[in-house]
Structure formats: C-alpha cells, structure tokens
C-alpha cells in the first residue's frame, strides 16, 4: 500500500537536502584532498616521526566506525573546548578527517606507482623536492588515481547520510522528518533513495568525463 500522494507536497523539502548533502561532501572532499596529500607526503618522506604520525592517523580513522568519529566530534568538541559546533561544520570536519585518511592511502599508492625514473630525471635537472612533487610527480599520480578518487567521492556522497544522527538536515534527515510527520516512512525514504541514486549516476558520469580529459597525454 504505497501512497506517494501523501509525500508529494514534501518533495521540494527533501530536495533542498541536496544542497546540504553537497555542501558536506564538497567541504569534506576539499579538506580530505588537502589532508590526504599532506599525509601521503609524510608517509613517503624521509622524516620518521612524520611517517609514524601519518600512519597512526590513518590507522585510527580507518579502524573505527565513521559514525562514531562523527558523534565524537559533534559531542566532544563542545564538552572539551566549551564551544558549540553546529551539525554542518561537525559533519564536514568528521568526513574531511576521515576521507583524508583514505585519500592519503590512495595518493601514496599513486605516487609510488609513478615511474622512479621521473624522480631521477627531476633530480638530475636540479629540480627541488617541493617543485618536483607539485609539478612532476603529483600530477602523474593524480591521473592514475582519478578512478579511485572518484570512487571515494561517490562513497562519501552516499555515506554522508549518517549525518542524520547529529541532526544535519541533509536528504536523509529530511526524508526521515517527512516520514515521521505523516507515517509514510517508506515512500519518503524511497524518494531519498532515488535522489541518492541519481546523484551517484551524475557523479559517475562527471568522473568519467574528467578522467578522459586528464588522459589527453596518453
């Protein structure tokens, strides 16, 4: 007994969650990329302390549930620092810190997969380490790992639904609110499912296009 008529008026309300979800995902992706690159550089670098810290960081964030990390950040920050944190920044922070760990592993693998000769040629030309990384090694690593990064991005987009536990008004939360208001949970959740699915399709499509553009020099 599905009755979509009961939830149709609320569809615009649910759709507004797309903006919230995208905000979280984009914010977290940018943060995750920056953090991921920094962590990856620490992991492949020669400074032992940095390597250990980066490895430890990664193992913590990969070794505990994301929903736990999210709740710790949301509830612990006010308790420890006596400042309030809204669900949105808390969500971006949690997802950013978490995907930084995953992305760092992807990037590390990508850097290691770049032909060692590229580094040799750079060194032989007297190119300093930072420039070599930025202009020679990382661009090639990025190209190789585009599919894995897109995958991470899409996963993040779906997983972001757990922000509902701290009350951020994303697609998921809104569907749940609508369901609760008229007891048509199933219909509301199905609408949310369709929205997530279409977003995934669009992101996948955009990812493929980006990959194509980046492989110009192949």
């Amino acid at each position, binding site marked *: 007994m599905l009755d979509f008529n009961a939830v149709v008026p609320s569809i615009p309300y649910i759709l507004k969650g797309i903006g919230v979800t995208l905000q979280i995902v984009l914010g977290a992706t940018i943060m995750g990329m920056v953090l991921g690159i920094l962590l990856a550089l620490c992991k492949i670098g020669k400074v032992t302390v940095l390597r250990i810290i980066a490895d430890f960081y990664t193992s913590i964030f990969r070794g505990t549930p994301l929903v736990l990390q999210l709740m710790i950040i949301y509830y612990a920050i006010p308790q420890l620092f006596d400042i309030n944190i809204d669900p949105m920044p808390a969500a971006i922070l949690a997802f950013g810190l978490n995907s930084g760990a995953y992305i760092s592993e992807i990037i590390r693998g990508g850097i290691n997969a770049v032909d060692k*000769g*590229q580094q040799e040629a750079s060194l*032989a*030309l007297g*190119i300093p380490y930072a420039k070599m990384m930025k*202009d020679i090694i990382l661009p090639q690593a990025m190209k190789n790992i585009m599919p894995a990064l897109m995958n991470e991005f899409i996963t993040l987009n779906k997983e972001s639904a757990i922000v509902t536990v701290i009350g951020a008004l994303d697609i998921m939360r809104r569907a749940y609110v609508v369901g609760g208001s008229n007891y048509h949970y199933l219909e509301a959740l199905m609408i949310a499912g369709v929205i997530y699915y279409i977003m995934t399709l669009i992101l996948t499509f955009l990812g493929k296009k980006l990959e194509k553009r980046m492989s110009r*020099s192949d």
Partner: protein
Amino acid sequence: MIKVENLHKSFGKNEVLKGISTEIKEKEVIAIIGPSGSGKSTFLRCINLLEEPTNGVITIGKDVVTDKSTNIMKVRENVGMVFQHFHLFPHKTVLENITYAPRNVQGVSKTEAIAKAEELLRQVGLHEKRDDYPNRLSGGQKQRVAIARALAMNPSVMLFDEPTSALDPEMVKEVLAVMKSLADSGMTMIIVTHEMNFAREVADRILFLDGGQLVEDTPPAQFFKEPKSARAKEFLEKVL
C-alpha cells in the same frame, strides 16, 4: 675538469665500485665500456650524486661534490644526464619538458626559455614536435628531446647512460648523430655505451670497467686493436 679519486660505492655489503680514480679534461669525450653489472651506471650516477659515494672524492670544476657543504642541486644544474629510458615528463609537451627546469630552477624568463628550447629542438631536428606530448614520439625522438632537455640547462658536462640501448636499431643512428655533433661542438661527455663503433669514432678515451674496477684507460685506437688487459680482450671478443 672532473676528478675522481678513489671512488668506492657499496649497496649494503655489495661493493659495486672498488676504488676508481680518473681525471677528465674539458671537452674530452669518454666512453665507459664493460660487462653488465660492472658498475658503469653506478659510476655515472655518483658523479651527479644520484648515488651517494661510500668513499672517495669527486671534484667538478672547483666544486668538491662529495663535500657535505656543497650544494648538490647547484652541481646537478651543471651536469646534464641522459637515461636509457629517456624519462621525459609524460604530462608535459616537448617544449614544456625542455623549458621546465630552466624556468623553475634557474629562473630564466618564459620567452628566453622558449627561444632556447626552440633552438635546441632545431639542433636535434625536432622543431615540428614542439607541442606534442612524449607519447606521440618514437623512441629515438624521445631520446633526442631528452638530450635537448638536459642541454637547456647549459651544463658543462653531459652524462649518458646507455642512451641507445632501449631503441630499435633504426633509431640508434639518429641519436648517435646528435651525440656526435654535440661532441664536435666541444661538450665534455661521459658516455656508457655498447655501441663500439661509436666509441671508437667519437671517444677520446675508453674506460673499461669490470667488477667495479677501472681495468683500462686507453685511447680507442689502441683499446680496440690491442687492449692491455686480458679481461678487456675477453670482453671484446664477446661483443665484437
């Protein structure tokens, strides 16, 4: 111009260079010959410190490159290197490959770097490829671009590590021709090669390495006619 004194290099317990000493004058062309695994590449790579010598002193011009206080990067700018597998930057065009280091390491202006790159591309006969990516080039063309890239830094010495070993036979000639004209122009060159005819024609001296030791240091005419050592004789019998 380059002085190598008692150069030792070990990888762990494996001693690859066992005390090599030689001196290379300006404008000299040196061919390094020897069996595979004899330490030729390692010797070359010690000169621009891609490998750190375990012991010994290397001097290039006034710089003691093995001295801890010497700026390695500055030394490397002055020493061009060409690899067996080219190692062009695949995500940069031919022109960008050549201009990157002058612009980013030496601070040369864009216009100046491009002008120099175009001149070098003409010199190696590849001016029409300036905007292509390396994947569009044949092996021989790649290697000529790699030579131009190294020359763009105005090095005072060029190191070549088997520059034609990865090439199809029909492309070897074009690369050797570029190297020959470079030698004729007075560039100081150290070349690890298996191209015996090239070594005979172009080199001023042959250094024969075997088992990490400099076994012979002879002019090519003599080396190919009558090598001094039994080991070189044996090697030549195998390759000629």
